[in-house]
């Protein structure tokens, strides 16, 4: 998968799960303040990403630092690279 394809899969998965407008899904978008997610959503977000990329990330410390969509892109890209 190219980086672009990885980011597209992240965005499309999250847009479907959380009914987000793609236009709002810019890398700087804060998950809570801009995209309106909450703590329950972040639990489901991990499950959605695990399903989309077939990896396990729920125990990763780095997840707790995620604040923006760009943080998710970077985190997932690094995980995908590790697995490739």
């Amino acid at each position, binding site marked *: 998968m190219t980086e672009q394809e990885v980011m597209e899969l992240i965005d499309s998965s999250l847009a479907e799960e959380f009914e987000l407008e793609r236009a709002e899904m810019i890398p700087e978008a804060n998950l809570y303040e801009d995209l309106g997610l909450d703590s*329950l959503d972040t639990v489901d977000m991990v499950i959605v990403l695990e399903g989309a990329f077939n990896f396990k990330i729920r125990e990763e410390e780095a997840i707790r630092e995620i604040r923006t969509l760009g943080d998710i892109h970077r985190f997932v890209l690094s995980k995908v690279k590790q697995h490739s």
Partner: protein
Amino acid sequence: MPLASVVVTGIGIISPLGNSLQELMEGLRGGHSGVRIIPSLEKIGGLRPRLGAVVTGVDEKEIPRKFRRSMSAMSVFAYLASQQALKMADYPEGQLGSGALGVIIGSTLGSTTTSENFFKDFFLDYSLERMKTGLFFQMMGHSCAANVAQSLGITGRVLAPSAACATSCQAVGYAYEQIALGRQEAILCGGADEFHPLTVATFDIMHAASTAFNLQPDAAPRPFDKRRDGMVCGEGSGILLLESKASARKRGARILAEVAGFATTSDTSSIANPDVGAMVTCMRLAMEDAGCSVEEIDYVNAHATGTVQGDNAEAEAIRQLFGDRVPVSSLKGHLGHTMAASGTIELAGSIGMLQHQELIATRNLERIDENCAGINCFQRTHAQPLKIVLKNNFALGGINSTIILRGYQND
């Protein structure tokens, strides 16, 4: 301590006959059927019924995702019906979070559809790693009540009685008692259920579901009719806003009816089969609670689901109390059996009858079964002066319940 009078000021309906009180009443008064063929039932091995009374025309997307994610269909129905009831009552939005308003809404089970979907996935590899956070909130026993309270910001008491077909009749009764005692000023109360083949199968294996009219959906069910062969399972939600008369008057709310009495009892003769004496006791206790005599009852809205045994027992119980004087009908010929919602949807229909001063006849009652003889099962919808209505709901598990409604003239 003097007890407060309790009145109905709002009604919300999501039903097989339409998604408002107005649509419900048009369907009932027009003699329409909400029963249809459900093609997916054919795929269930061993299941004989093919009919259901399901809700159409509901757009769950009108509920914000944050609230909808914890809702299965039954909570969606309960939420939409609750909104309607509050709107009809013109209940002030600022009062929702005051603690004066409570919620008593029940269902037969938590969401069976959600359970099915979860276990279908779980059994693939016995993994819980794909389980999302919304699951429990849809499966829990108080899903409808909690979802309604959360999504509408209601901060008073939240209860979720669960008594199968008697659920919402009990919910109204418990709301009536709590308001009468002054514990809450107003309560959104009722029931909701969603259609699932498991419900149909439950009645099918007990030979209590209709199968003879599988190709003729509008001919079933047939309460009190000679050719009746069982119930038709349905879904929906009926929600009433009950309020102390003092509160309703203070706000200038239009009063739709008064809840005058309630009784609920346990029939321990059998967990499945009804006992005539226990039904008589329940109706008698409700009339005592309302302080009204047998002679004062103008109409009985029967539970009568269209099963052979249940209708026989209820007809006999009504005969013992009222003989053939009091008009009796069941609305399940129109609506099917909306399970936990049936009590409040049919109470709404009864309130509609009080308002229109019109008695709605049992749909599909063509020839009265001789085993149901001796009661006044009228066969034509007609105008009639009405003041006091008695409404029954009898449930699997031996749960009996009766509500007495009194018509109300607004100044």
